[in-house]
């Protein structure tokens, strides 16, 4: 899926949303949102009142009823439009996904072997457990697992990344996704998903929001909003009785008209949040997709905002992928240059990242240029599991490098002795979290190369920001505790798990959860699957195995382990947007009361005009302004609903203060200004 | 759950009976015992007797109408003013025309009965109390009536003033409540004063 950042007001989406806004007026669609359904009823009622009015049974001036009725319909349309916009963005993405889900012909094998009988079938007919052969140039027909072969695959259809990736049988890169293209070589795969249930299908339905279920928080909010709606419904309907009493007790004025009661109700009911609620939810999922993360459910997105413990793999997430040489420490009576020279010679042909980093260090620090290994007559001795050393043989020189124990036994074999001084260097490097690599020539130890894990730039700062948000980070590594502790200190994680195995990873998560913590982790291997399944939020790498992907509730298409942090923020943003608009919506009510109440009861109690603190021009205009404001504010807040409230990495208290200030006080003040402004416009165009 | 509720039935009956005895019988009787022991006069209603017969309670106001007595506040009790079997206020609102009318009647009445007074009438003299049994008036309300009483009783105004001076109560501990004076007590002393001078 080629994820472009879509402009908020994409023309095509806009047009479709406009059309959908009207289509969504069907009662079947409206009844799903209790708050807006009451507005729907209100709109129908005012329309009916208008029809009565023009047939001569007017309870209020017909043009007034018409205007109120129209603006109530607009309120509904605006809310529908917001939802349609949010869905439209998802649909556009789904459209692109669908393109890659064409029907292909698959080469079905009778048994998992290259020379088995091939039957050509349509991909639709494949079922779980079938074996399929895919060759270079073929599109992978369905999700599955490689049983045999190694291929390079273009997965841009799913990830948007066109650089080919390697997939091979066994290990952690055995999963292939239907709809992706095999560029080279061949594979035999076992189908793991029935058609219609593939990863791509899931993505499409998620993006379209077709299977969107209400998340727990959304449900709780809906309950609160419904409760408020019921109360305001009663507040307004009892007003008729109150007005009736007041008119007879005071002996003047008329009982408040039904139109005004309905207008007040729609203004008081939390229509702003009610109208935008589903748009916010859809937009939240959409933001995950923009970040190239597929959420298996909305619940996962929400849970991401709640997590308070992040479990991160050391390699690739906290440190750059590999160890690098950082220092040469010579043995007694050896110059550092001599050590550097030997180290460089031994590594010239060493293509491992460690080896290359030694050459680079020698060049940068001691000006030793790279030499051509054949021109100096050297032969490279590669690393073997038996010797546990690598090195180079030059005429008259035999240079070896390796772990301290390996070199020690090598030196002993050669009749030399391993100096105590070097041993102490080795120990001190290890205690600082480095990996010591001893260099020897002949039976003499020249010194030690210090290899170190390089902590990613800026990661420590990132963790301290997370701490401010209340999220603890735990580093997981296969290193020994000493090394792990040193790196943990450098990266400033809160805790670490050394000598990690899938089993003790799972134990760690369970322990944290029993303490009441919500744990998030990333993983890619099959052996991560149990831990992923246990974690509250589990981000599976798209490059990972099928098992890992099934166990996770989020899939990161970029396979970027630091994505977890972004995921947390998107989750928080989703909740915050709901909270902000709820606060705003309810705070608005105060201004609306001040606009409508004096107008509604003015005929009975003119003195109530003291409450008309906005000095609205006429009673009609006051009520109309409030209704218009109530409708327009939905439109103005659509961008906020779709983009989400901006999240800052600060403590909860600061965040609360900022948001209460912006959306609470803003919600209190803005309607006063807005209603007054609309009143001025209405007055000046003479609609009174 | 059903068996639980059935089992609770036995408990609830016994709990209610036991606490009825404890808080409904033992507690009030014990308090009565202590109160009768420590404050016998007060716990029996602060009654004033004359020749062995009760003539009123110091805490319950009475309706005085003769010129020779200090008068208390208007009372809104139902059958007649200061009907202590039916304590009640007027419950009239400030915005009720009837209230203004009542107050105006009172003002006229006070002005007519105390022609010597031409100052402002103290508020308490023209408004009905909450209980309808308020035994007290403000010191200002008492002073307002001095000339009338002195005239009716043929006492000097100073004598009556002294009486008020003697009986007026300050705020308790200087901060609680309001300065005030007990009408019944004043009138008892007046009677006593008269019987002494006679």
């Amino acid at each position: 899926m080629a994820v472009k950042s879509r402009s908020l007001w994409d023309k095509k989406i806009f047009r479709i949303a406009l059309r959908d806004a009207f289509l969504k007026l069907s009662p079947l669609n409206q009844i799903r949102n209790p708050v807006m359904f009451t507005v729907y009823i209100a709109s129908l009622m005012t329309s009916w009142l208008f029809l009565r009015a023009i047939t001569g049974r007017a309870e209020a001036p017909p043009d007034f009823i018409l205007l109120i009725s129209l603006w109530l319909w607009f309120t509904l349309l605006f809310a529908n439009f917001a939802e349609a916009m949010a869905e439209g963005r998802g649909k556009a993405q789904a459209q692109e996904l669908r393109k890659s889900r064409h029907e292909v012909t698959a080469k079905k094998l009778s048994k998992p072997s290259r020379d088995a009988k091939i039957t050509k079938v349509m991909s639709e007919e494949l079922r779980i457990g079938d074996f399929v052969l895919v060759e270079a140039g073929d599109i992978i027909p369905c999700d599955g697992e490689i049983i045999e072969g190694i291929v390079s695959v273009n997965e841009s259809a799913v990830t948007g990344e066109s650089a080919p990736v390697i997939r091979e049988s066994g290990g952690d890169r055995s999963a292939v996704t239907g709809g992706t293209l095999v560029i080279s070589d061949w594979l035999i795969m076992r189908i793991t998903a029935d058609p219609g249930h593939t990863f791509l299908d899931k993505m499409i339905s998620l993006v379209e929001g077709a299977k969107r279920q209400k998340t727990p928080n959304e449900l709780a909010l809906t309950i609160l909003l419904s409760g408020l709606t019921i109360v305001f419904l009663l507040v307004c309907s009892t007003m008729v009785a109150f007005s009736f009493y007041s008119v007879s007790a005071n002996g003047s004025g008329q009982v408040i008209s039904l139109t005004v009661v309905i207008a007040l109700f729609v203004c008081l009911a939390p229509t702003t949040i009610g109208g935008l609620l589903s748009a916010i939810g859809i937009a939240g999922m959409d933001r995950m997709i923009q970040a190239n993360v597929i959420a298996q459910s909305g619940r996962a997105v929400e849970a991401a905002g709640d997590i308070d413990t992040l479990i991160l793999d050391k390699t690739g997430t906290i440190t750059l992928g590999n160890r690098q040489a950082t220092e040469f420490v010579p043995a007694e009576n050896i110059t550092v240059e001599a050590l550097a020279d030997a180290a460089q010679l031994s590594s010239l042909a060493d293509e491992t990242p460690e080896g290359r980093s030694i050459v680079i260090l020698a060049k940068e620090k001691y000006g030793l240029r790279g030499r051509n290994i054949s021109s100096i007559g050297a032969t490279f001795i590669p690393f073997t599991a038996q010797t546990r050393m690598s090195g180079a043989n030059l005429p008259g020189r035999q240079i070896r490098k390796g772990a301290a124990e390996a070199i020690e036994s090598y030196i002993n074999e050669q009749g030399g002795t391993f100096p105590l001084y070097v041993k102490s260097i080795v120990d001190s490097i290890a205690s600082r979290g480095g990996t010591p690599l001893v260099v020897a020539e002949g039976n003499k130890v020249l010194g030690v190369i210090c290899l170190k894990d390089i902590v990613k730039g800026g990661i420590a700062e990132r963790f301290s920001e997370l701490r401010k948000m209340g999220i603890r980070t735990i580093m997981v590594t296969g290193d020994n505790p000493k090394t792990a502790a040193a790196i943990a200190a450098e990266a400033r994680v809160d805790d670490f798990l050394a000598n990690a195995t899938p089993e003790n990873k799972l134990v760690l998560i369970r322990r944290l959860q029993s303490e009441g913590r919500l744990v998030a982790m990333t993983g890619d291997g099959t052996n991560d699957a149990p831990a992923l399944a246990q974690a509250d939020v589990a981000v599976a790498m798209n490059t990972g195995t099928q098992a890992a992907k099934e166990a996770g509730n989020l899939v990161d298409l970029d396979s970027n382990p630091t994505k977890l942090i972004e995921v947390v923020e998107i989750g928080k943003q989703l909740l915050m947007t709901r909270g902000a608009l709820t606060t705003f919506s309810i705070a608005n009510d105060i201004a609306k009361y001040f606009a409508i109440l004096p107008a509604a009861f003015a005929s009975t109690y003119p003195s109530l005009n003291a409450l008309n603190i906005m000095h609205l021009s006429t009673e009609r205009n006051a009520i109309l302004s409030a209704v218009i404001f109530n409708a327009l504010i939905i439109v103005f807040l659509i961008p906020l609903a779709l983009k989400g409230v901006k999240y800052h990495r600060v403590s909860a208290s600061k965040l609360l203060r900022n948001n209460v200030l912006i959306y609470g006080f803003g919600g209190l003040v803005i309607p006063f200004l807005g209603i007054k402004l609309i009143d001025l416009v209405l007055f000046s165009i003479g609609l009174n | 759950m059903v068996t639980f509720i059935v089992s609770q039935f036995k408990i609830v009956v016994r709990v209610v009976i036991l606490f009825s005895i404890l808080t409904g019988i033992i507690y009030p009787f014990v308090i009565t015992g202590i109160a009768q022991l420590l404050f016998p006069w007060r716990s029996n209603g602060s009654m004033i007797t004359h020749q062995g017969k009760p003539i009123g309670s110091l805490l319950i106001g009475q309706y005085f109408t003769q010129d020779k007595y200090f008068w208390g506040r208007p009372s809104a009790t139902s059958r007649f003013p200061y009907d202590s079997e039916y304590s009640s206020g007027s419950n009239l609102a400030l915005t009720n025309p009837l209230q203004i009318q009542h107050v105006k009647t009172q003002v006229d009445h006070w002005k007519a009965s105390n022609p010597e007074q031409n100052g402002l009438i103290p508020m308490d003299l023209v408004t009905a109390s909450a209980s309808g049994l308020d035994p007290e008036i403000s010191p200002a309300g008492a002073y307002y009536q001095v000339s009338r009483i002195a005239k009716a009783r043929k006492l000097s105004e100073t004598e009556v003033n002294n009486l008020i001076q003697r009986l007026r109560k300050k705020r308790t501990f200087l901060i609680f409540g309001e300065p005030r004076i007990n009408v019944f007590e004043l009138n008892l002393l007046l009677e006593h004063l008269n019987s002494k001078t006679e």
Partner: protein
Amino acid sequence: MKALDCVQIIFYLTVVLALVKPLGWYMARVYEGQSCGLDYFLGPLERFIYRCCGVSSTEQMSWKKYLSALLLSNLFGILALYTLQRLQIYLPLNPQSFQNISSNLAFNTAVSFTTNTNWQAYSGESSLSYLTQMLGMTVQNFLSAATGMSLLAALIRGIVRFDTDRLGNFWMDLTRSILYILLPLSIILSIALASQGVIQNFKPYQSASLIDPIVLENKTVTTQKIPMGPVASQVAIKQLGSNGGGYFNVNSAHPFENPTPLSNFLEIIAILLIPASLCYTFGVMVGDKRQGWAILLAMLMLFLPLAGISLYSENQSHAEYTQLGIESSGSLEGKETRIGISNSAFWSAATTATSNGSVNSMHDSFTPLGTFVPILLMHFGEVIFGGVGSGLYGMLMMIIIAVFVAGLLVGRTPEYLGKKIEPYEMKMATVAVLVMPLTVLISTAVSVIYSEGVHAVGNPGAHGFSEILYAWSSMGNNNGSSMAGLNANNPFYTTMGGIIMLIGRYWIAIPALAIAGSLVKKKKIPTSAGTLLTHTPLFMFLLVSVMFILGALSFFPALALGPIVEQLNLWGFHGR
């Protein structure tokens, strides 16, 4: 308003706040089952009660069991009180031979006292026997107060405990509330009140020969019949247990219920004492005293300004009076001389902030703003102090909603004191919070269009509307005070009132207990920097806003047509 009035009010508050800590701590010990100093004397009695009643002191109840025990005891209480009123003529201690109470009124009163409302459509001194007052009213004053406190204790345990479903034993909570808290305090207070002149005896009503007989049109009244009875013991618990049901018709305005400024002081303190102290108890029990102080401060944030408005308004002089030549600084209509204006105004705020409902002045004769304050205070749902126990558990419902909104605002599933607030809790809290506006609005609306409802009104215009609104706000919130000009002793008000009081009590109590039952099963989430702090001024502000929006905002139209417009008219606003 005189400077001395301010001194008095500040002194009251200081005394209450000074007592909050010791009493709050003591009550926490009582509910945590720890030794609290009185067990030496009361322990044997407590164990005797358990033995007599068959209460197993080791049994812990789930929320449903706790609830059914609670409901059963209240149901039995209603039946007992109803029966007592219907049979009083046949029972002893009825020296005035008062007749049996009518069925409607008896139902209303029985519900009223068992729900801790103490709305009184009857006049005590002219209808109830001493036995009914003692065995009925006094007993229910204890039981209903203890019920509220027990429920609160269960809810707090729901927050504190985790991974269990046991909330405690209702019978033990009830017994301990009465034995260790209500009874000792009542004994102290009733003796103090008796020293001030509150009567306490079993004599028949005393006839006093008047020295100045009253000459009426058709007869001359020569005697005054002075009521007697065991008053002090009942007044003490009525104030402490936020019951508020007076022995006499005019409640604490009666000289026998509240004879001196000192008794007035003691009773005001008693009104506020337990509801305020329970905040501290809460803090102690949840292991974070700041949480308790925060709630208390949030309450004061609303209470103090509103009490201030009442004091200000009642002390204003009125042109209508000054024109007549009256020395006027505020009206004394419906107020007692010894109590004065400011003490009446402050009491009106205190008695409606708590769900006490006793009065020392007639609220009906207050200025419009002076009636606005008590009505508004009730509209907050009786959670600013509120009833003993019920106020704080009501407040915790508000807090759950405030925490929910705040949680969303910081992007985290809301939690309170380590417990996650999920849809179930929200459903229950929403019911608990929103049922009150529904009952009050509906019953008010029915009353203002139904002839029996309208005819009961005692004052014309907007003030009459306020009377009806006040009545239903009082019954719907289990307060019990009234603007007494409304004649509520008719079948319509007594029957519907009984129903509204039942809904008002149990539709908050049941959801609160359900929430306790749900919270107690949850894990406790450790706090982190991402946790929303619920003891900060900011959260208190948010809580107050939520209370304002859920309570006051729903009643804005009704208040506008009652006290607000009445006050505006009084101020001489005449519109455009």
